[in-house]
């Protein structure tokens, strides 16, 4: 088994003292980020990315850097559950479904059991997703090695059409948000012809919009403004968790193995196609409710109702790395930021990564296993500490988070203009959230815009302007066909609903 040998070598890379240390630092930072309002996986990683610039330059440094950043991501996934269960405030969008049963459990004084169940299922979901990554990604990468520009463009097309077809926001708004992202990505120097596009004579816009600035503004500032609106009175349950509660809950959990497995499959699927962790968690919750014997009691504090969404969210969040590594197409906003990091460090995400950067890829995959173990240890032992962070009054936390965002935006290119852009994106993020425009396709489009356009133009060069190239063989034709089907899905489902109504 080629994969097993590569994975063992990967463990060799990931298990150095420095990398294990970075794992713990990353996970702890990630949980803090996941717990705080206004900071989350995507913009937490975006803010800390500039700090890895110098780290990535030393030999083996890119592996250490990705371990640090991906562990922040795992930590944030864990952290979201804490606020949902104890405070009924989802720290991350994918933990909304966790509040349904998690918070009632906490009110009944069973917060410890709910937290243990959440963390353990997160771990299980992530573990299964990592196994999927380990064995599936070399196959996908090997397959993708034969891809030419038309195939790559069709994969990008599929990614973006999936957003239109599968997101719960109105399709027209999804399209607007996505195309605005592409337009923002096009600002600056055209990489092919060298002409200036959409700069309108501004010097600041010459280098274009940086997706990191957009992420920090949209998710960070926008989120703070939204949180502020709700006035924020934190009334939390106590977070007592001890070995006895952990053991008792662990004894109960194997009963829900079927829910776990089903949620993991939903999660992995939704993570690989860019549906994302949030819909996955809702789907898993709905599925568990339908299949469970006590389905009617869901929402009153059932452990199973915590297991399902947490498993799915973590599985989706983790498996979002698979298309990011193998195809260069991230499955979630945070995976998009990680992809941006790879590009900044000088690595080309995509199938060649598995050939040229074996140490990096397998070091990362091994670190996902280890990082989640580290995460489970950290959250089980330190919950009261993290819950205490939430008790810091908002009058202190809000300005500090604003300062962190400003510093993060500044350090991307050591540029004050970017800080102003961050504020602008913050207002945009606030309005987007209020009006139900999705943020994820916007961010993904900014990250992938140049690459999507480049593959489109290369394909057009090959075919001399004939769109038929996207149907020129079975592979590219079926991907494009699937993409168009997903794009048309809102219309199709509307017609089906109408036909049923008659």
């Amino acid at each position, binding site marked *: 088994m080629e994969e097993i040998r590569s994975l063992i070598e990967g463990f060799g890379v990931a298990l150095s003292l420095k990398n294990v240390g970075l794992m713990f630092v990353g996970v702890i930072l990630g949980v803090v980020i996941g717990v705080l309002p206004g900071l989350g996986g995507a913009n937490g990683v975006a803010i800390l990315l500039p700090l890895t610039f*110098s780290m990535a330059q030393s030999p083996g440094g890119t592996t250490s850097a990705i371990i640090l950043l991906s562990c922040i991501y795992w930590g944030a996934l864990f952290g979201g559950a804490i606020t949902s269960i104890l405070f009924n405030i989802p720290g991350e969008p994918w933990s909304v479904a966790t509040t349904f049963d998690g918070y009632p459990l906490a009110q009944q004084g069973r917060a410890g059991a709910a937290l243990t169940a959440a963390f353990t299922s997160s771990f299980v979901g992530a573990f299964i997703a990592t196994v999927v990554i380990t064995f599936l990604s070399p196959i996908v990468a090997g397959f993708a090695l034969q891809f030419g520009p038309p195939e790559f463009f069709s994969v990008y097309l599929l990614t973006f059409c999936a957003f239109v077809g599968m997101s719960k926001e109105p399709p027209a708004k999804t399209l607007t948000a996505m*195309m605005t992202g592409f337009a923002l990505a096009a600002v600056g120097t055209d990489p092919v012809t060298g002409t200036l596009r*959409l700069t309108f004579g501004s010097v600041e816009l010459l280098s274009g919009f940086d997706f990191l600035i957009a992420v920090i503004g949209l998710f960070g500032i926008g989120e703070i403004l939204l949180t502020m609106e709700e006035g924020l009175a934190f009334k939390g349950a106590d977070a007592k968790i001890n070995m006895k509660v952990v053991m008792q809950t662990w004894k109960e959990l194997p009963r829900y193995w079927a829910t776990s497995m089903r949620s993991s499959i939903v999660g992995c699927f939704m993570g690989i196609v860019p549906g994302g962790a949030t819909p996955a968690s809702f789907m898993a919750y709905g599925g568990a409710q339908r299949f469970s014997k006590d389905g009617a009691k869901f929402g009153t504090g059932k452990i199973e109702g915590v297991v399902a969404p947490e498993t799915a969210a973590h599985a989706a969040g983790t498996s979002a790395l698979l298309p990011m590594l193998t195809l260069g197409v991230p499955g979630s906003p945070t995976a998009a930021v990680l992809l941006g990091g790879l590009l900044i460090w000088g690595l080309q995400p995509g199938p060649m990564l598995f050939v040229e950067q074996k140490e990096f890829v397998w070091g990362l995959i091994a670190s996902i296993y280890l990082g989640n173990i580290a995460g489970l240890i950290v959250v089980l032992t330190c919950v009261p500490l993290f819950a205490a962070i939430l008790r810091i*009054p908002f009058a202190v936390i*809000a300005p500090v988070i604003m300062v962190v965002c*400003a510093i993060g935006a*500044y350090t991307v290119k050591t540029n004050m203009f970017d800080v102003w852009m961050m504020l602008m994106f913050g207002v945009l993020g*606030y309005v987007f959230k209020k*009006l139900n425009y999705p943020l994820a396709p916007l961010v993904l489009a900014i990250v992938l815009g140049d690459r999507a356009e480049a593959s489109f133009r290369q394909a057009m060069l090959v075919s001399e302007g004939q769109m038929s190239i996207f149907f020129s063989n079975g592979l590219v034709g079926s991907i494009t066909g699937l993409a168009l089907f997903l794009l048309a899905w809102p219309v199709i489902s509307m017609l089906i609903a109408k036909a049923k109504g008659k």
Partner: protein
Amino acid sequence: MEKGGARHGAIGTKGVELVVAALFFALGALVIFDSRRLGTGWADDGPQAGYFPFYLGLIICVSSLVTFFKALTIRPERDKVFVDSAQFKLVLAVFVPTVVYVGLIGLLGIYVSSMLFIGFFMRWQGKYSWLKLGMVSVGVMGVFFFVFEMWFKVPLPKGPLEAALGLN
């Protein structure tokens, strides 16, 4: 628009929907306009620079029109509240100081302006004692100074105070 409405109570979602959709339409038109300048066709060496953006602009225009007309059909009695004046005041209470803060960074450097911002906000919204807000703002920025300047060697913008202390 938003400010004017806030004084009279709540702002409806319909109005904001229409304005945002119209702004997106304008953005799409702007993209199309610039693409036309660059050329949206086919040159000797392949697609021209405006080829791809032209269609982006077109889709933005069409999709924002759809949103616009959908929003038009919202009947006034079913219009949801976008933000009410109490909420909007809270949003501005954090947004306006942040704008001032970003403006100050250029003048005073990030350390001094951040300390002022954190201190001001704690005093204004949380009524903290001078001692407490001094400890928090100096402590937080001290940690940042250590992490950025000493540990990761990422210089942040500095102002006259750092120059006077010889920390540049």
